[in-house]
């Protein structure tokens, strides 16, 4: 049976070149990067190369790159770290209503310890308007956190404009770039951000490793205390194989960015067109143009998403509905509700996300299989009326 993986926003396959680079650090080069002997030096050397690779990918300097255990930890560090470091200056944080739970739940926690959080609404395409941010800024606002691209609907934000608004009011700006990495240029200078979160496993790197970019001079406190690793910001013995892996993943993403984007754009557009041409009343969720090159999110009236995922899975196609994190509960996605979808259309959403490892054959196979599945569910749906 064909196996087609279209859930690359959940995780990606590790690139064989990444695996190859990592392998020695599970084996003979097992040293602790903090040790003074040659075993330690080998590890430290690898960590320093990894840091340079991530820095180059982001247009940053190596000392502005801090390794973490993943995107969620990076988001936690950025929000909690800056909130606490600047709490004498203010207790107000601004974010958007469509952030990943890593940001939303951290904000919810910060609210319980005396911080105030404003959750900005988005328009029907999922965009945060700079004017909306401007209106929410106060003298007490110390940090604004808005994701570069949304994990469910793929809508991208004008981070540069939003960061400028934050800076005009004396606030720092963090962006969660977990989904945009490898799909959009990520230059911290042109984005104008102070902090940026990155994850290894979304860019064909390993799981359990991520990075936080922190602009030099940014006030930030640690969340994890201990032996003072990562210049005191994130204690924990360096995950050397992980760092080597995320470093190589960033290097590959950087080298092939233009080719990857153009390939994914082509597949995405073919998928949207193929689905729209063959399935009546298929609605594209998100923004028509300001969206990630790897994201397709569509709703089919009268169809329940989870049943569709099961049918696709039976045909060997891996996809998701809502976000992979929230689909254990049958609640509609907070992102789809925020862009104004009614509950039924939100529950009937299908997310197909691509990577550079997909092919046009994958797209053709999906377009071949999907219409009959949607038709089958509609035929048994009390909500579907044939026009």
């Amino acid at each position, binding site marked *: 049976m064909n196996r087609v993986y279209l859930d690359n926003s959940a995780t990606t396959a590790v690139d064989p070149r990444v695996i190859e680079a990592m392998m020695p650090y599970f084996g003979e080069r097992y040293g602790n990067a903090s040790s003074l002997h040659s075993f330690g030096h080998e590890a430290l050397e690898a960590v320093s190369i990894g840091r340079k690779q991530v820095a180059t990918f982001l247009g940053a300097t190596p000392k502005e790159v801090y390794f973490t255990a993943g995107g969620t930890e990076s988001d936690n560090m950025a929000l909690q770290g800056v909130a606490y470091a600047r709490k004498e200056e203010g207790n107000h944080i601004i974010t958007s209503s469509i952030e990943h739970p890593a940001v939303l739940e951290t904000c919810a926690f910060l609210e319980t310890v005396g911080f105030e959080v404003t959750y900005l609404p988005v328009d029907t395409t999922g965009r945060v308007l700079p004017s909306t941010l401007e209106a929410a800024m106060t003298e007490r606002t110390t940090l604004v956190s808005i994701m570069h691209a949304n994990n469910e609907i793929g809508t991208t934000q004008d981070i540069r404009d939003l960061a400028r608004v934050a800076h005009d009011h004396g606030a720092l700006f963090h962006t969660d770039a977990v989904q945009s990495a490898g799909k959009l240029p990520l230059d911290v200078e042109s984005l104008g951000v102070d902090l940026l979160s990155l994850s290894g496993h979304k860019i064909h790197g390993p799981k359990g490793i991520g990075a936080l970019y922190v602009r030099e001079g940014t006030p930030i406190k640690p969340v994890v205390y201990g032996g003072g690793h990562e210049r005191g910001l994130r204690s924990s013995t360096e995950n050397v194989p992980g760092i080597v892996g995320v470093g190589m993943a960033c290097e590959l993403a950087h080298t092939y960015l233009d080719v990857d984007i153009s390939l994914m754009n082509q597949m995405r557009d073919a998928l949207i067109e193929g689905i729209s041409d063959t399935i009546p009343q298929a609605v594209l969720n998100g923004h028509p143009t300001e969206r990630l090159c790897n994201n397709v999110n569509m709703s089919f009236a*009268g*169809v*329940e998403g*989870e*049943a569709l*995922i*099961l*049918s696709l*899975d*039976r045909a060997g196609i891996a996809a998701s509905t809502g976000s*992979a994190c929230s*689909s*254990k509960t*049958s*609640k*509609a996605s907070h992102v789809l509700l925020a862009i104004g979808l*009614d*509950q*039924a259309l939100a*529950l009937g959403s299908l997310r197909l996300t691509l990577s550079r490892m997909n092919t046009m054959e994958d797209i053709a196979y999906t377009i071949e299989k999907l219409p009959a599945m949607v038709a089958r569910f509609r*035929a*048994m*749906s*009390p*909500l579907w009326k044939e026009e």
Partner: protein
Amino acid sequence: MGFEFNENVIEHFENPRNVGEIPDADVIETVGSPVCGDMLTLYIKLKDDKIEDIKFKTYGCGAAIATSSLFTELVKGKTVEEALKVTSDVVVEAIGGLPEKKVHCSLLAPDAFKQAIEKYRAKQ
């Protein structure tokens, strides 16, 4: 999320029995709504206190489709009193078990059936 469904569930999901409408149904009942995430409409035709025919339509997940299908199969031809004893526990056991977080889906059809019968009896 991982679909840990057994072959029985998958078989009913892929080939559900008794899907559709009964134009001259004696009673039609709907439970759930798109807001709950699951919705089921039952069409029932009764003859001499027996379920002569039963069909369903559903907007629901795989487990909802499979258990509704099996429910209609179990009650067809039974008397109303026998059919009322086909609870969600009976359905789950007959289908060979469901993942814990999917057990609630098996309530749809028995609930709809119970309500349908109450509605039918109130009309008589």
